[in-house]
């Protein structure tokens, strides 16, 4: 099955004002740089973005924020972004902060065809406000769990290391993070890859996301792969 598209502009076709999209990446690691750039170019507005982080001021999702294209962010951690903070405090931007494991598992549930999950994260905190609490005896103890709904983003966008025309994806090191979950949750999933390989070149045993979850794939035009915190030791 040939799911290849020409470039990032063609890949994001159909993402319209007011839609909900999920994006892979942890900090700046493994973010779909090319599709984000294409979204900026497209001028699409009022997006709801599900993404663990919101980029930095001048890179990643920070670029969409800078151009006021985001209505709402659903994230677990949004430090390192002054423009984000300004928009949030001024009320321009709606922000739903949720625990990181909850975010990951709500995406997983979407891709696994399950409407909801139960997690202990956030019990007794403001995250639990308005949510159904259920008590389970599990793993040797009885405790409270919050019911959290699966994410069903209209579009999902991820960046993978390698992929093929069938949409099979392989991620590299910790650039995997949320990306397989994001890819599985989308009604339409777009993958930008560093290397688009010939069909049959990927080892079937080592594919992280099977192509059935991926609808469009292309070789990213350019990867900057910026490092957020360069920490090293001396030789």
């Amino acid at each position, binding site marked *: 099955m040939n799911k290849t598209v020409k470039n990032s502009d063609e890949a994001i076709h159909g993402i319209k004002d007011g839609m909900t999209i999920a994006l892979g990446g*942890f*900090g*700046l*690691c*493994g973010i779909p740089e090319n599709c984000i750039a294409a979204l900026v170019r497209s001028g699409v507005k009022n997006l709801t973005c599900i993404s*663990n982080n919101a980029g930095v001021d001048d890179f990643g999702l920070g670029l969409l924020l800078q151009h006021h294209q985001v209505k709402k962010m659903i*994230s*677990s*951690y*949004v*430090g*390192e972004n002054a423009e984000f*903070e300004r928009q*949030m405090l001024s009320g321009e931007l709606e*922000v739903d*902060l*949720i*625990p*990181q*494991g*909850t*975010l*990951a*598992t709500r*995406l*997983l549930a979407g891709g696994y065809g399950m409407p909801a999950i139960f*997690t*202990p*994260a*956030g*019990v*007794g*905190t*403001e*995250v639990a406000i308005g949510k159904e609490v259920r008590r389970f005896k599990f*793993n040797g103890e009885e405790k409270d769990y919050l019911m959290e709904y699966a994410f069903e983003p209209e579009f999902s966008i991820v960046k993978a*290391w390698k992929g093929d025309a069938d949409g099979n994806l392989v991620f*590299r*090191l*910790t*650039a*995997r*993070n*949320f*990306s*397989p*979950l994001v890819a599985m949750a989308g009604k339409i999933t777009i993958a930008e890859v560093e290397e688009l390989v010939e069909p049959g070149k990927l080892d079937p045993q080592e594919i*992280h996301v099977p192509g059935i979850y991926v609808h469009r794939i292309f070789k990213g035009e350019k990867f900057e*792969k*910026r*490092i*957020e*915190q*360069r*920490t*090293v*030791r*001396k*030789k």
Partner: protein
Amino acid sequence: MLDKNGIAKRIAKEIKDGYYVNLGIGIPTLCANYIPEGMNVVLQSENGILGMGPFPFEGDEDPDLINAGKQTVTLLKGASIFDSALSFGMIRAQKVNLTILGAMEVSENGDIANWKIPGKMVKGMGGAMDLVASAKNIIVAMQHVNKAGESKLLPSCSLPLTGIRCVKKIVTELAVLDVLPGGGFKLLERAPGISVEDIKKATAGKLIIEGDIPEMIL
């Protein structure tokens, strides 16, 4: 009084051979420097690593290999990489033996607040709420008092909570304390040069002192 490295060094003594450990950002990260050589300890980073190693040598840093604090890191022999759902799966299923994290406030019943100061600082909880809700063994590394000299070990937290009744042990610049299941901070050890009186003054929550309190051995 202990500095940050002193707190990390004392906490590292709680890490046992064969443990899988998740270290939070800040002082907890420093604990890795004090794990005795030859001890088998596997560090988990919640963005998807088991077997995290030290920072890379200059020039070897890889943008695709970072820890949960977004710092460039390395992998040790036997390491594995996985996605975020699996990472929190192993945390929720209590496969990780010990979680060490920082806090702004801890209450005498073990509640912890470390993610938000309303109107001032809203960065988000990251993985902290998942970790504290599931971990069997949670040690908090924190300052005993804030910059204004007010205690951060309180009868109840004033800041929005990260988790309830979850903290088991606290190591501060002044002391090591257990949080008792029935409530209260039980004083176990004093930092070098610190008296029981000093610790009493710095603790707003219920402090339990039984017998002589030894000075900690670092």
